[in-house]
């Protein structure tokens, strides 16, 4: 009945990877006291010390715990995008967003600080933390390609009368101020929390990233239509389980079972042949059951022949079997 994607992360490896990265990297960095290398600021780190590696890694770790929680929830809500685009394209989109948003933010920061930022209090010093740029870039795709399911209204103003006649409804509707909200208010609320949680840096970097998302979608920033990130097809599943996929898996399982049956038959034949060829030698577990018959049948020809040597385990098993 509902058009929502199923709850959970079945067959969504990219979303799993994003959530795990969002949660584990800050935790490990915090325990090992290395969170400071993910902090990106212009004044001491880029301008003075030229630590440009921070531009490559600042989106992997959110400094604050609240940002980490909000980002993990947003990545979970974005599972609909993976379901819509497919894992490979979704991963490509994430990588492109990471590259373009980093370049865009860095470039605009350099331009701003080269001209307007000469004055101290107009300098753009702080950057966002965590994967906020990637998320804001993906928000455009979510808004563009996810349909609205339902909407609900909140009437803020209007007459307080309880009458519900037709004329009253008409006049009420004309004078009332209604706030229309759709079913994506949860994602909207989380995005707003994330942006406001990081202050002015969040607002500025978020806007730049959102513009990057629009440009990626429209083709101004190339790559999404003709390029896929290489060497990752092996690790990404073939998509959500469908009838065709289930049939292919069943065929593979059947083939494997047939091959196993063939191997078992060959093993049994080899065991039988081995039993026939060399009686006195040490025999496998399967062939040991035929030894007494062979011995009794060959009793007249070899009266002095004793039982063949058996391992201790085989002796125990034969004892309990008889």
């Amino acid at each position: 009945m509902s058009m929502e994607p199923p709850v959970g992360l079945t067959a969504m490896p990219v979303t799993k990877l994003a959530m795990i990265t969002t949660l584990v990297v800050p935790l490990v960095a915090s325990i090992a006291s290395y969170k400071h290398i993910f902090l990106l600021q212009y004044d001491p780190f880029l301008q003075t010390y030229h630590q440009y590696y921070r531009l490559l890694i600042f989106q992997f770790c959110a400094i604050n715990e609240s940002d980490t929680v909000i980002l993990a929830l947003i990545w979970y809500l974005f599972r609909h995008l993976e379901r819509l685009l497919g894992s490979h394209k979704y991963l490509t989109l994430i990588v492109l967003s990471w590259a373009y948003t980093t370049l865009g933010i860095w470039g605009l920061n350099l331009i701003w600080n080269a001209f307007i930022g000469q004055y101290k209090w107009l300098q753009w010093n702080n950057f966002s933390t965590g994967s906020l740029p990637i998320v804001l870039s993906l928000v455009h795709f979510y808004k563009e390609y996810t349909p609205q399911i339902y909407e609900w209204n909140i009437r803020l103003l209007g007459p307080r009368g309880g009458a519900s006649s037709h004329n009253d409804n008409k006049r009420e509707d004309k004078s009332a101020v209604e706030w229309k909200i759709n079913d994506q208010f949860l994602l909207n609320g989380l995005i707003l929390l994330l942006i406001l949680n990081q202050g002015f840096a969040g607002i500025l970097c978020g806007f730049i990233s959102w513009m990057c998302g629009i440009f990626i979608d429209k083709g101004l920033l190339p790559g999404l239509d003709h390029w896929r990130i290489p060497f990752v097809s092996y690790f990404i599943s073939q998509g959500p389980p469908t009838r065709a996929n289930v049939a292919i898996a069943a065929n593979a399982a059947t083939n494997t079972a047939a091959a196993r049956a063939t191997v078992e038959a060959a093993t049994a034949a080899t065991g039988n042949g081995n039993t026939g060829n060399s009686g006195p030698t040490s025999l496998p577990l399967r062939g040991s059951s035929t030894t007494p018959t062979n011995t009794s049948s060959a009793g007249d020809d070899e009266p002095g022949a004793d039982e063949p040597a058996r391992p201790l385990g085989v002796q125990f098993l034969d004892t309990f079997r008889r």
Partner: protein
Amino acid sequence: MDNFESTAEGNLSIGNKRVYELRKRNFQRNLVNNLSFLGYVLISLEYIKYDRTVWTLITRAIVQSLISSPFPSDAKLRRLATLGADNNTTGVATLPGGRSIRFPGMFGTEMLYNSSSEAEQQDHDDTAIVSMKKQIRKFLFHGCLSLNMLFIILTILFPIDFFEPLSGSEPVDDGPKNTPSPFSNSDGLLLGERRGGLFLQMIGERLPKSNFSGNLGLVMFEFSILIVQFTLFSLTCVVLADLDFEEPERLEPVNSDGYDGSVIVARIPLNKTMNAILNDGNINDNNENASNSV
């Protein structure tokens, strides 16, 4: 042929309307769940970000849980109503004219006409259930509003000094101001960040840039919690509670079958919510006066 076409169109319209209603009900449940989840997220983030006490977290979570599912099931309420009725010593006697009059002090074994008495008992139980639900709603309204207002007023009157644990080591003025420092280990801070609390928060939360911005953010969080909880209350206790709220008459006929994204799930009039609660109180007072006079 015309009859067949009109019949087909009528059937299609009836089917669309039925599917629309079914999907609307399902979407209402989804809306309540999402709004409740948003409330829990805000409460947790306030605890994580501004280091509120665990009791604040627990109290807010309890209020949120009560508002999410305010009423017990009708079976429990019916059992409570039946228990009350069993304890009641008022009997019902049916006059020969068909009217039923309640006599205080009569015993229940003298009831006549079982079918009519059962029907009346059912109506009485339904009335008792509605009355209980209204009492629960009133209690939740006052509890939720009072608690949130209390927290907001306390935050405004007694702002938090976020830099009080940093009494020994103030950060330098021209350097990074709110960057955590490994030399700040004092009350509640570890490596210059808040990491403690009941849930062993290992990632840590930086201090705000200034006391003003910290307290402003805290007040904004509390107002957002109030707004979300009041909206959820309006949704679960007034609009979807089937007590005394009448959905406004639909102006345009519904041509949608529920699959085109234009399902209007709920229309929450916030002013009518407060009006309903206050009028409900008045109605209860009138009922009490009437019962006293009788």
